[in-house]
């Protein structure tokens, strides 16, 4: 027996630990320490797993704040998160557009900022030339109108020189004057330093620094951003640079479309599942079992089998019925998203399962009082089914917001697309293999993911219950 040093009065308690068919006597602390260490290891593993499962989304979110989402090494703390740049963005936004939050480039405004280059020892003697200031055209957009080209005068003058061990650092003051008559949301600027020079610092970090044969090129996507305009640059760009034929922004349109479609889908799903669920759970009629089994069976058949006929059905306006309402075809309308599959077998199944758990006595009492089947449905079943309606609404919203295949088949013009289809085009335009605007694609993806994440955090239980209940649905 071993005594604990300094605690000679108390005898350490021993506990028996079975291991490989033998019982070992160990001190209780020995065991306790093991349990604590095990807990620590388990939590570490759980955290690592969480990082693996959530990590990609988190990385995408962080990288949407990078000016170049594909540059190596990936910076997890990009210049957009530096408070120094927030101050610069606020000041420049205020000078350029009179708005420290969202910035802008307004007529008659004048702005100055500082940028510092360093010239290597070899160039110092040669008296480095002034960097060149270039006002860049508005960003490339898909189709439609362009922002007006900014009419801007630019001046640059050296204000301070400092000799350091690595060379001569020269700070320049750049002055920009808006001499046009139109307000421009974003002013893109480039400054080209002499070949061999290095960028040191600026009032606002440039979006990109590239060392080329012709010189060191600094570019700003927006030199007058304002704090929000700077921090959420990718988001503002994603939201505003993709224009349609009519010159209106497409991204907000897609968000709106997705929202409207999802709301309608929720209403229809809940209403029709309530109706069908009640009939299948409670009412007696011939062919009930067959109908239910048939509904279950349809869930096994791939959507590829039925989508061709359903596409043709909609193209022909559902046996020509839509012509009565003045539409020769239903393709490229929102009716096409609802009409063929008014209600899914999965949601009917969920509702039926729930209604079967409502005690029958309530209905029987009502029936004795002379209530009809329809009255029982509206007065008793629907009020009691509120929890299931809630769960189903969440699941239907989630399903509609994320749906990809059917909108891809029936929605043909950019203005009609829902967000998932829009994002697909977004990728093709901004994220092509050589594309450099992946930050916009990521920003778009994050915008699309946010509503679902918020709903998930608020109504987590419903998602889990939904998976368990409709274990049959896929």
């Amino acid at each position, binding site marked *: 027996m071993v005594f604990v040093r300094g605690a000679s009065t108390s005898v350490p308690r021993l506990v028996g630990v079975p291991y490989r068919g033998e019982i070992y006597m160990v001190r209780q602390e020995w065991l306790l320490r093991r349990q604590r260490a095990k807990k620590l290891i388990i939590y570490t593993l759980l955290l690592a797993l969480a990082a693996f499962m959530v990590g990609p989304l988190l990385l995408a979110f962080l990288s949407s704040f990078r000016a170049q989402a594909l540059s190596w090494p990936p910076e997890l703390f990009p210049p957009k998160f530096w408070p120094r740049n927030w101050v610069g963005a606020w000041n420049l936004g205020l000078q350029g557009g009179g708005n420290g939050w969202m910035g802008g480039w307004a007529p008659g405004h004048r702005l100055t900022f500082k940028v510092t280059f360093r010239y290597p020892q070899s160039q110092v003697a040669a008296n480095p030339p002034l960097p060149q200031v270039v006002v860049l055209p508005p960003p490339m957009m898909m189709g439609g109108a362009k922002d007006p080209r900014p009419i801007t005068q630019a001046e640059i003058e050296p204000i301070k020189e400092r000799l350091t061990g690595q060379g001569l650092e020269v700070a320049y003051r750049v002055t920009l004057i808006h001499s046009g008559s139109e307000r421009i949301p974003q002013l893109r600027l480039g400054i080209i330093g002499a070949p061999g020079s290095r960028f040191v610092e600026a009032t606002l970090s440039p979006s990109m620094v590239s060392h080329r044969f012709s010189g060191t090129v600094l570019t700003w996507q927006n030199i007058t951003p304002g704090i929000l305009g700077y921090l959420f640059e990718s988001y503002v760009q994603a939201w505003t640079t993709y224009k349609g034929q009519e010159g209106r922004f497409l991204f907000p349109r897609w968000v709106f479309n997705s929202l409207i479609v999802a709301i309608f889908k929720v209403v229809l799903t809940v209403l029709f599942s309530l109706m069908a669920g009640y*009939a299948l759970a409670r009412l007696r009629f011939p062919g009930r079992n067959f109908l239910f089994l048939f509904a279950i069976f349809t869930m096994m058949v791939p959507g590829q*089998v039925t989508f061709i006929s359903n596409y043709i059905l909609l193209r022909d306006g559902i046996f020509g019925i839509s012509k009565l309402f003045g539409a020769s075809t239903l393709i490229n309308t929102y009716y096409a998203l609802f009409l063929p599959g008014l209600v899914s077998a999965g949601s009917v199944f969920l509702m039926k399962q729930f209604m079967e758990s409502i005690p029958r006595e309530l209905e029987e009492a009502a029936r004795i009082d002379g209530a009809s089947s329809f009255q029982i449905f509206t007065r008793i079943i629907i009020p009691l089914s509120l929890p299931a309606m809630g769960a189903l609404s969440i699941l239907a919203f989630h399903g509609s917001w994320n749906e990809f295949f059917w909108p891809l088949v029936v929605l043909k013009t950019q203005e009609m697309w829902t967000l998932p289809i829009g994002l697909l085009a977004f990728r093709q335009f901004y994220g092509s293999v050589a594309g450099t605007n992946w930050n916009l694609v990521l920003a778009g993806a994050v915008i699309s993911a946010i509503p679902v994440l918020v709903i998930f955090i608020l109504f987590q239980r419903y998602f889990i219950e939904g998976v*368990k209940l409709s274990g049959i649905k896929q």
Partner: protein
Amino acid sequence: MVRTVLGKGVRTLHPLALLKPQVLEEAGVAFILLLPLLWTLAVAFAYAFGRAVYFSFTDYDLFKTPEWVGLRNYTQLFKDYRFILAFIHTLTYAGIVTTFQTALALLLAVVVNRKIRGMTFFRASYYVPSISSSIVITLIFMWLVHRKGMVNFALTAIHQYHRHILLFLALVVILQAIQVLWERRHRLPAHPLDPVLLLISLLGATLGVVVASWTGLLGVAQVSPVEISWLTTERKFLGIPLPFLSIMALNIWTTVPTFMVIFLAGLQDVPRELYEVAELDGATYWQKLWYVTIPAIKPVMFLVVTLGLIGTLQVFDQIAITAGVAPLNSVITLAYYVYWNFFGSGTLPKVGLASAAALFLALLTLVVVLLQRRFGISEKGWYS
């Protein structure tokens, strides 16, 4: 499964009973309430299915009048190189993805099936890949596996620091072995993975690596950066195109959480007594997992495998989203083959051929599910 699905209190009704007014009223209300569902089942499903069968025997192209061509579409399918490719891909995909997602989902469910503080948070965070839409996840994935993306960056880093990693692992093993032997000699029941000793070993190994790199004994390896373009390469691994393997990895990652939830529900239904009896018999953790848990959740496993097979055989979204970048022949599956013949081939839609392929896919799903029911993991649990 059928009996549980139908629920209790189901009585069949003879059609003649409708002559009674109260029964007739009930059936009438039922009919009205069921109209939306009936419309869906009749028009969007039964009629559509029938038309698919009909189209598969015609040369319809969306514009001309369909003409009967007999079995020509079906024979043409099997002469089409792309179709054979899509068929092989689909089977490979279903086999590999279902296996991995089932195993990993079970593992994950076992890991999160313990009552410790904060577990709700962890479970919720693991579920995130499953709730995000296929487009969001696939876009982020495409960015990650881009030639200049994070995956290649991480691989490059691992390659650069592979000596550090190897040294670290070796030190952990050596330190752990020394400590365990020391404890054993002092008659303490130290498990090879004893948590306290493991923490000490990890700490020691970290210190060792830090010292080795500070003193210059261990340098960063000079390697050329990994620049695999995962989605556009024509390279293969084990005969499977790399882009396709990448998509498989993506799909496993997104579906594991869904099945984890189903497994978790099953695990929580396993009677505690079974574990208690096993513990009395001196079963270890892994023995309990293998001899108690897995047999007890066999019905759940059947459900998961079936759902997994149905889902993977019909994979479409990820393929359609990446198909703009990846070579078509590397990633095409049956579901995408159907869509591609209808919309994507640049010629008039081959409705007949697409329908035939779609029906083939439906048949394949049925056969695979039935085969797995017969020869794979069956519905019957050991204790039911």
